[in-house]
């Protein structure tokens, strides 16, 4: 975009000066062009193809510690066993569903992973394919909370609770109501509603205050009442870790997996599943409807459900196994919320959530916006 608003034309006779200026101008233009090109570069999502003979499975993953754990535990074993290649594309559940809706099988994905119950909506819209019980034998031996009807069951469970700084929060919190303690004014953090933990927070605050799926007012009021204590609303675990780590906040609502990781890193944090109830949610892998690699995709799902892989995954990422045959070693059973504790938790009603997500989000945003 050239600027034409010159004020005064250089007088003749100052030719050399003008030439110098022109070259300086050209230099500026070149710098600007390079700058724009560099700042405009983005990373693109999917990759295609593979070597001759080796098939490639394109799988979405959530990034962060979750993706690292999958790369460490699940993918190498799968590639070795089936002589295939897996390419992980980082995409959170919401955007993954958006992409499926917009492009379906043309999205290029073979498998999408969801953590917020999006498989319910994706199933209703026929964006994901049911799994064949014969192709995924491990699906038969999962706990009740992991079952998804004709679709692939969850391969790991996560739960929403309160992560707290053990040095600053005494006594340890036990209930959602402890978030309202006036001693923690401006020192509480909540996950954003775009994150499953955030949605669960609203869901639970609504439930314990007498609301229901069709009456969210008690939940909204509860979030509004929490405002004086609320410092920040984070979208991801990394931000939560930073806020809790540098002492900006003392209590953070998030998932048990991250609590486990923080303790692994040696941070002085505790995790509590509130006694007034909380939600457990499953992490699922789903075959994209129309994928040419559906057979291979089901093999990956089956492998993720295998007891030994689940124990290794629990060790690496802090999620609870879903296969009843997966037995955690004692030390792990102590740091992870054990299955008996998770079994008392309820599962959010997927149909209600997917029908109301937009309306809840809009209201939530209005409440937490500064």
């Amino acid at each position, binding site marked *: *975009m050239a*600027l*034409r*608003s*010159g*004020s*005064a*034309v*250089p*007088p003749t006779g100052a030719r050399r000066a003008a030439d110098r*200026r022109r070259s*300086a*101008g050209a*230099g*500026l233009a070149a*710098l*600007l062009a*390079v*700058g*724009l090109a*560099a*700042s405009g*570069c983005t990373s693109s999502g999917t990759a295609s193809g593979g070597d001759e003979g080796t098939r490639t499975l394109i799988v979405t993953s959530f990034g962060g510690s979750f993706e690292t754990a999958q790369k460490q535990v699940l993918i190498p074993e799968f590639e070795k066993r089936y002589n295939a290649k897996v390419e992980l594309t980082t995409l959170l559940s*919401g*955007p993954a*569903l*958006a992409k499926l*809706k*917009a492009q379906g099988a043309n999205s290029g994905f073979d498998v999408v992973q969801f953590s917020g119950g999006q498989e319910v*909506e994706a199933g209703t*819209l026929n964006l994901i394919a049911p799994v064949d019980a014969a192709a995924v034998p491990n699906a038969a031996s999962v706990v009740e909370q992991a079952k998804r009807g004709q679709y692939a069951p969850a391969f790991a469970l996560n739960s929403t609770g309160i992560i707290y700084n053990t040095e600053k929060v005494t006594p340890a919190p036990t209930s959602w109501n402890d978030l309202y303690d006036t001693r923690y004014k401006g020192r509480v953090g909540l996950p*954003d509603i*775009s994150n499953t933990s955030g949605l669960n927070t609203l869901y639970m605050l609504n439930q314990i205050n007498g609301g229901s799926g069709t009456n969210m007012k008690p939940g909204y009021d509860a979030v509004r009442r929490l405002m004086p204590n609320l*410092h*920040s*609303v*984070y*979208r991801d675990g990394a*931000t939560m870790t*930073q806020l809790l780590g*540098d*002492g*900006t906040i003392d209590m953070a609502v998030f998932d048990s997996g991250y609590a486990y990781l923080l303790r692994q890193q040696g941070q002085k944090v505790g995790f509590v599943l509130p006694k007034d109830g909380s939600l457990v949610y499953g992490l699922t892998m789903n075959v994209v409807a129309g994928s040419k690699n559906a057979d291979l995709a089901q093999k990956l799902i089956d492998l993720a459900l295998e007891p030994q892989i689940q124990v290794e995954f629990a060790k690496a990422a802090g999620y609870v196994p879903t296969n009843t045959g997966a037995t955690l070693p004692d030390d792990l059973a102590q740091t992870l919320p054990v299955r008996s504790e998770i079994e008392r938790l309820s599962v959010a009603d997927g149909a209600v959530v*997917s*029908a109301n*997500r*937009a309306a809840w*989000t*809009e209201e939530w*945003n*209005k409440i*937490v*916006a*500064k």
Partner: protein
Amino acid sequence: MTAGRTRGGARRAAWLPLAPVLTLYAIQFVVPMALVAVTSFRRHESAGQMGGFTTDNFTKILQDPYYLGMLGRSLLLAGETAVLTAVLGYPIAYALARGPRWLKVVLLVVVMVPLMTSSVVRSFGWMVLFARDGLFSTLAGPLGDGPAGLMYTSTGVLVATAHVLLPFMVLTLYGVLDRLNPTLVHASMNLGASRTGTFFRITLPLSMNGVVAGMLLVFATATSAFVTPQLIGGTRYRVAATEIYEQSINLLNWPLASAMAVLLVAIALLTMAVYTRLSRDTGGSGATGIIG
């Protein structure tokens, strides 16, 4: 007749080199924008599903205090950024136009580097500085917004946005200041004006159209700022661009997102129209008018 055909041929030939870039613009800008404009008038049925035509999306944005406030916040951020870049950019542009050669090189590098850095990396840099125990909070001390530094504050977003848009302001002002006739300055000082007096009575008024042009350019760009508000502002500081992302990617309300996008583009086009108008008006007559 022959001559006419030749002239027509020449005109066609002149258009020919532009064909690739025009095609590119048509495919990657005009067509998608047209689709967005059409989508903005569709009815939102459920996540990702659209129905018949309606103007509800625009009514909602322009009547709901939440969305209206968000548009207002975007415009306020853009306005503040324009003022801040003008204040910070003027001395830099002045030094670029008048300073010694080595200073030009140093300033150019300093000013241009933000443009060459990925916006994500640049924002992370600010996040480190703005953190609770970061350098900025320590140095700024009482100016900082509480003990938490400038993260998740409007001030933080403003500073980081001004940083990235400063080059637009500096380059615009540099163009104007560089073309300013130096004999006018000499004449003023010959006639007894001080340096300061000359600056305020000659240089500044003559470069005013550059200041306005730069501010409009920065304003138009800042209304659509996304990465910086998203990373520095966090979830509680929402502007139009981050809301468009939220509506389109997380909530799949494409009609509402499109309507907000159409409004933003309209604001940008309006700003650009003023910009072009000012550039044309002052192109030849500005300086002579003042001299006369």
